[in-house]
């Protein structure tokens, strides 16, 4: 058995190492960016080869944003992290792997592309869902991942909270609203992708709270006829941040490539790739070009409503925080 398998394995392994690149980067990212980074990595590798004559291979790892941060903290050798929210990179920084001022090293809060939270509903919008307060109707089934493990779900939760606080004017009422909303959630997947599969493929639920780009992707994959995107009038500006993991990049000697990789996001080409994959570009010119692809939504930021990620995380998603209280009741 072994004698037969070993040469085979050796052959297969040799075949793979024949393509070794000059540099190899590991980008540890969150769930819905698979297609985005497949596109971006190809473009960057080509651009880098052209400019420096060196080949770069970028390896990807995807998962729930929190789980991915945990893996990096546990020693996953990521040169760069591109996660769903700043708190997860803060958690990595707290262990000394990333410099504390990471978010100031790149412009725009180190978030070269943004997104927001929209609703994906079934064809014809049978439950007539238009705005956040439609989501707490009794009997409606809302699909969202678990805010404890998924970055996207935290944005979902905070978007709902921001809406309610603005509409009803108090934190207590916002808490009641969000509790009612989560009462309507029949399945709580660990990652955004899992929730999309649950809604789209398994046919569970009336509405999916999703990243805008994820909603577009689901529509593309399964045909426009089957699902509709509903953009609520008010939502949150989701800023997925990126950073070099200093400790790893320095040890592996990949800092220069890793920085070039992240900076590529701020070029026209990078911004175009973001727009093409339904992430909102930050470059005004590119944004104008793609204006029609994105719904007009009034966007509030996490700093406006929640006083930043650290506070939001502690108040809402920390041990015994508001989400725990909602779920304990």
């Amino acid at each position: 058995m072994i004698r037969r398998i070993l040469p085979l394995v050796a052959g297969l392994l040799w075949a793979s190492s024949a393509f070794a690149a000059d540099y190899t980067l590991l980008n540890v990212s969150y769930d819905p960016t698979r297609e985005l980074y497949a596109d971006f990595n190809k473009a960057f590798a080509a651009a880098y080869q052209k400019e420096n004559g060196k080949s770069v291979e970028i390896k990807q790892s995807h998962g729930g944003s929190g789980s991915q941060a945990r893996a990096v903290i546990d020693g996953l050798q990521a040169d760069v992290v591109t996660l769903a929210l700043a708190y997860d990179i803060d958690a990595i920084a707290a262990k000394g792997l990333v410099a504390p001022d990471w978010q100031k090293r790149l412009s725009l809060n180190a978030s070269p592309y943004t997104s927001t939270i929209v609703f994906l509903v079934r064809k014809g919008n049978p439950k007539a869902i238009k705005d956040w307060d439609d989501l707490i109707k009794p009997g409606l089934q809302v699909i969202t991942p678990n805010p404890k493990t998924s970055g996207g779900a935290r944005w979902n939760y905070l978007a709902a909270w921001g809406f309610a606080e603005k509409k009803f004017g108090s934190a207590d009422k916002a808490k009641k609203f969000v509790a009612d909303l989560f009462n309507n959630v029949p399945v709580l997947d660990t990652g955004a992708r899992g929730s999309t599969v649950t809604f789209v493929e398994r046919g569970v639920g009336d509405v999916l709270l999703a990243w805008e780009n994820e909603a577009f992707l689901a529509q593309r994959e399964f045909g426009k006829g089957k699902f509709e995107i509903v953009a609520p009038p008010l939502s949150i500006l989701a800023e997925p941040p990126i950073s070099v993991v200093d400790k790893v990049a320095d040890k592996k000697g990949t800092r220069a490539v890793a920085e070039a990789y992240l900076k590529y996001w701020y070029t026209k080409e990078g911004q175009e790739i973001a727009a093409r994959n339904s992430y909102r570009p930050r470059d005004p010119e590119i944004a104008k070009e793609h204006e029609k692809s994105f719904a007009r939504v009034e966007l509030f930021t996490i700093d406006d409503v929640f006083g930043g990620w650290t506070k939001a995380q502690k108040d809402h998603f920390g041990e015994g925080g508001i989400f725990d209280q909602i779920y304990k009741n």
Partner: protein
Amino acid sequence: MSTQTSFVTPEAPLKAYASTAGAAISSLSRREARERPRALASPKDFRTEPGPVRFVIVALAVSFLTIFVVLPLVVVFASALSKGFGAYFAALAEPEALSAIRLTLLVAAISVGLNLLFGVIAAWAIAKFDFPGKTFLVTLIDLPFSVSPVISGLVFVLLFGAQGYWGTWLQAHNVHILFAVPGIALATIFVTFPFVARSLIPLMQEQGTQEEEAAISLGASGLQTFFRVTLPNIKWGLLYGVLLCNARAMGEFGAVSVVSGHIRGETNTMPLLVEILYNEYQFVASFAIASLLAMLALITLVVKTVLEQRLDEGQTPRDDPRDDLRDDPSDH
């Protein structure tokens, strides 16, 4: 009774085998075994139930197995081929799929190889010698059978993770265990630990030590004795253990998932890739990989059936016609 093995065997298929081997050893049970069909075939058969009851029982058994076992298997192949053979083979030829297959084979080779070596060593120590605490030792070997795969992965995160007991040292010395092949192999070795040892221990015990002692007294060395005397006796049992060990090693999901890091094209095994592709809306690709694993399971079952026959033949001396005459001449 030889039908009961002397040790706990918390692994049903192994147990079934162990009992088969046990039955084959004793001439008593051999005679019993040949009486059985006769009793069943007897015209005034009091050992069966009325026709309708028989029908209901068979119908229940067959429909249960069809719904719970056959259908899931059919679904895998039907989904994998739902877009035709072209899409199916294209999915398997993806570099990511190939790298997952490579990694799975590599990890299986490492873990089966090491478990084979240490399984034989452990079986020798346990089956051929008597010592206090034997039952306890066997229980420890059995433990991974009933430990949740997630826990099997977790323990290695606690040891080798950057925040774990040895993490700082490993990081400082640039040794990567977690999120790399060594971690995946360790977790796989953990979950497949008992297979080889547990399929050999009952077999080697039944065979006793006389043959080996004879070889030693004739001047053979320990290793010679093992390779010339013991190994030929246990080869089918050994293959049986390796087969089951391999099936589990290639299919392990929970433990590997915890320690993998999910680096595309690098630390994703086939079962992990099934999950990843499934989450990427690539259902055909996901089920294509799943179908390879399902085929592995089917091949495992076929080989297992063949091995079980070999084991029976190897253990049961050929039926002696005189036995028949002696047993019940009236039958002939």
